[in-house]
């Protein structure tokens, strides 16, 4: 797999803006862990085993707030619940008959917003039998790069000024925003995005912990129901 051309193409795809977008936030996260009193191996383990930034921040902040292990598990589960629909969505796209189940479960560790967006941006130009290797290259590189950037952020946090660190944290949401906008081609997607953002803002006042998931489910369902006829005509 690692010597296959689709794997190399996936790695090539990840190098550049996708790696920069995610890596900059991981760098800032590494710096945050340093200031929070974590050691370097704990910082490494956090990104190596979790690889989902919002949940990693929630974990660190819950520890600092004196939360229990159950608090941490539930808070991270709720925060990273967004990965569930993304995984359900991308798995049928990348799997093929030659990919065993254990490989599918292992590779799911690489599913994150950045890898999801980038895979969907190109998957129609890739042969079905090549998609899995391509995704392993793409997601695997983003994961490895994130681990390296977390360590770099931990080590060089004293060298980088606070203003630059804040700017680096802003790169990732802007990258997500631009990738979202660039993927808006169908009416159902446009509707889902606009409703998701609006409902998230409204629901944040009433159910802050659940606002993202509830807004996403409502927005996606409404977008799908209103424009599902378009799929038939495509």
């Amino acid at each position, binding site marked *: 797999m690692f010597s296959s051309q689709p794997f190399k193409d996936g790695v090539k795809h990840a190098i550049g803006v996708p790696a920069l977008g995610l890596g900059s936030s991981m760098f800032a996260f590494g710096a945050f862990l340093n200031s929070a009193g974590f050691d370097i191996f704990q910082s490494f383990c956090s990104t190596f085993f979790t690889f989902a930034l*919002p949940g990693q921040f929630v974990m660190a902040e819950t*520890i600092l707030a004196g939360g229990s292990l159950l608090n941490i598990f539930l808070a*991270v589960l709720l925060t990273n619940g*967004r*990965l569930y629909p993304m995984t359900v969505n991308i798995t049928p796209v990348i799997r093929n008959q030659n990919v065993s189940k254990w490989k599918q479960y292992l590779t799911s560790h690489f599913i994150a917003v950045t890898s999801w967006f980038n895979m969907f941006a190109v998957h129609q130009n890739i042969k079905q039998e090549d998609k899995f290797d391509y995704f392993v290259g793409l997601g695997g590189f983003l994961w490895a790069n994130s681990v390296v950037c977390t360590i770099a952020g931990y080590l060089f946090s004293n060298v980088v000024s606070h203003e630059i660190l804040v700017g680096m944290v*802003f*790169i990732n949401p802007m990258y997500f925003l631009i990738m979202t906008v660039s993927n808006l081609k169908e009416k159902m997607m446009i509707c889902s*995005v606009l409703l998701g953002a609006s409902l998230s803002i409204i629901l944040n006042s009433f159910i802050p912990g659940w606002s993202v998931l509830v807004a996403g489910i409502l927005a996606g369902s409404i977008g799908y129901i209103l424009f*599902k006829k378009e799929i038939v005509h495509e």
Partner: protein
Amino acid sequence: MSSQFIYLSILAASLGTYFCRAFGVYSARNISTDSPVFHWIKCVSIGVISAVIARIILFPEGILGEATSFSRISCTIIALVIYFSFKKNVLLAVIVSAISFALVNHYI
């Protein structure tokens, strides 16, 4: 906080995160790319992502929470304007908005 507790916390966070991914793979076992569920779940995914972005920009936690709403919103607009003004250049839009954000936070 003890070192052992931090490692157990990382384990708890990793299990919580991996559960979402593994359950996603399991749930997708009978879903094909041309099924209605596939299209619905794609809409839900993009809806969730847009909800996350809106929340990060308007109600951020952590380091971004230290910045003003004005800087976050104005630099988001800058990112979109640059993207559409310069042939949909993703890198340029992201870099310019991040630099603007750092400058606005430093000087205002």
